[in-house]
């Protein structure tokens, strides 16, 4: 059982404060959804936790199983068990998915240890079959010329192979039509289980029809302003974000 604790986290890009005191704890097996209007700091939160160099953590802490990860480089955080599924995954021309994943797994081995190629391909193909991904996919360059749906499936495949303790999924639904969305959600549901904690960042409720969260949090102006169960997402869908804003304004005024 692992635990990812985000404690009163403040994040800035340059001088501009974006995340302004966010606290949240995720345990293995849980799926938390963070919803909120655009520009509220959702993506910043995920990139800061993953260790993007452009995001400065000005105060607060992020602990993985009780240990702060803030001093770690992005690659060290990944090897410690974090995974970021990107909203806009980078294209890496000339590097096949098979070689890319192999390098990522190799990075997790001790020096001098080599990946067993046969076992690697066996496992890769098993994961691809599980996620219903065509095997031809492995020889294509990472995200190079991929459709929106292919890029997101490629993220899910990487997640399946790297088996993180926690996955931060940034707007996984953006740019997907309903069929692609269903396929990607199915992939996440397949990987869901007692050893994985998920933080699902989304603007729209529709993703949550397919990936049903255990907890829903509403983020506004760099903070979580409301938390609840999966029904909160439906309430938000019905009433819109203005409802939260008004409630918040009323609370601040009082």
């Amino acid at each position, binding site marked *: 059982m692992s635990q990812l604790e985000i404690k009163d986290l403040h994040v800035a890009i340059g001088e501009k404060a974006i995340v302004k005191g966010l606290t949240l704890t995720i345990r293995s097996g849980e799926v938390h959804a963070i919803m909120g209007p655009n520009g509220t700091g959702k993506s910043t939160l995920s990139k800061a936790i*993953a*260790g993007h160099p452009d995001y400065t953590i000005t105060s607060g802490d992020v602990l993985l199983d009780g240990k702060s990860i803030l001093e770690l480089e992005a690659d060290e955080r*990944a090897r410690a068990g974090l995974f970021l599924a990107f909203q806009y995954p980078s*294209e*890496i021309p000339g590097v096949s998915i098979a070689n*890319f994943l192999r*390098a990522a797994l190799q990075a997790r081995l001790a020096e001098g240890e080599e990946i067993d190629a046969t076992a690697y391909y066996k496992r890769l193909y098993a994961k691809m079959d599980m996620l219903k991904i065509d095997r031809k996919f492995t020889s294509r*360059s990472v995200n190079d010329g991929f459709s929106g749906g292919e890029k997101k499936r490629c993220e899910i495949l990487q997640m399946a192979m790297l088996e993180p303790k926690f996955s931060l999924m940034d707007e996984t639904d953006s740019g997907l039509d309903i069929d692609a969305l269903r396929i990607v959600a199915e992939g996440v549901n397949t990987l869901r289980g007692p050893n994985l904690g998920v933080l699902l960042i989304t603007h729209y409720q529709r993703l949550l029809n397919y990936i049903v969260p255990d907890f829903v949090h509403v983020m506004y102006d760099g903070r979580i302003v409301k938390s609840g169960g999966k029904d909160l997402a439906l309430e938000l869908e019905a009433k819109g974000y203005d409802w939260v804003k008004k409630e918040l304004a009323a609370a601040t005024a009082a």
Partner: protein
Amino acid sequence: MSASTLSSTPATVGAFTPEAFAAHLASLPPLPAWWLDRKRAAYERFASLPMPKRTDESWRFSNIATLTLDGFALPAPTASSHHAPIGIQKSAKLVFANNRLSTREPLAADLAARGVIVDSLQNALVRHGDLVREHLLAQPQRLGSAKFAALHEAFLADGAFVYVPKGVEVELPVGLFSYAAGANTAVFPHTLVVAAENSRVTVVEYFGSAEDHDAHFACGANDLYAGHGAQIVYVGKQDWSESTLSFQLNSTVVRRDARVQSLNLHLGARQARSESLSQLQAPGAFSEMLALTVAHDAQEFDQRTLQIHQAPNTKSDLLYKNALRDKAKTIFSGLIIVDPDAQQTDAYQSNRNLMLSDDAEANALPGLEIQANDVRCTHGATTSRIDREQEFYLQSRGIDRAAADELITFGFFEDVLNRLASDELHTALRNLIQSKFKK
């Protein structure tokens, strides 16, 4: 040539004095007189030509101060047995150590019976004098290193001679190895490939040092000649020690409907100058000129190329890719010349630089000189910094910076490596590049 030019200043000849040259001639076995005459003339040329100057256009951006020839010496013949296999199947193999043939694996009897020759230049000079005389160092030096070409000719002791007769196809590559051993050793590797009408051959050449820490002076050259309809694939792997000063002067002649594909991999040396001249002499000739460079620390790779279209309906395609790390420097200067009657020329020249460090320096000087009016010529150079988001993407998968650089470099090189038809060669090159990233 007057006697005064022979008593040149040490600055212009360094260790390669008239006495050293006389000792070199004395060390050779009996060789044809025409060749010894050419060597003497070459020595005079070498001694009289000035060292390159900073103001020479063909040396623009090059570090001239570090070209000194002082301190190097011709090695005593060595019994060095150093050899590192590159893991490919070969039809024949010649290994040279310090300018002498040290090991050979002969051709299969059936190829030899069909007239294929893979032999030392010394033997070929004696046994196949006319062929050697016609093609050995027979092309003009137009890229700036005439002095070093003359030095090469003067001190060339031995090298490889590959001849494939009309209509014969050699399936497996011919493997050639040149090693330098011992501190401050000077080596002069040479490879001459003559592919007669409608023949096919692949030659894979490796240049390396017996010890990583020794400095060498390597002054090599090759001549590739593709007769009508012939196909030559040449792969050169330059992996000298990183304190070596290296020159490699390559010449390719392509005749009617012939095709030459050359790929030069540059990894070693502290300063490496490579010059490649391709002459497309008859209709249907095609020259594909490829190069990959991984430059790190303070290495300098200086690449000068010339594609000359001398006949109509000829094609050349040049793609040089450099990956630069640390404080490394590369220079690419390429020129396409299209002669007045070379209509329907199709010429392409591209230099791409991937900067893996902010302190590295890539210089590019692409050029065209077109005298025909119905041609298609494109040239260009790009230099781009590794993308930060790409780097973060890789890191977010657990891959550290160094491994990320390696992976992105391979991605960058992939389209060049994919031009090789042989998977085995592709893998051998990948392994060699990988070993550089482990240094």
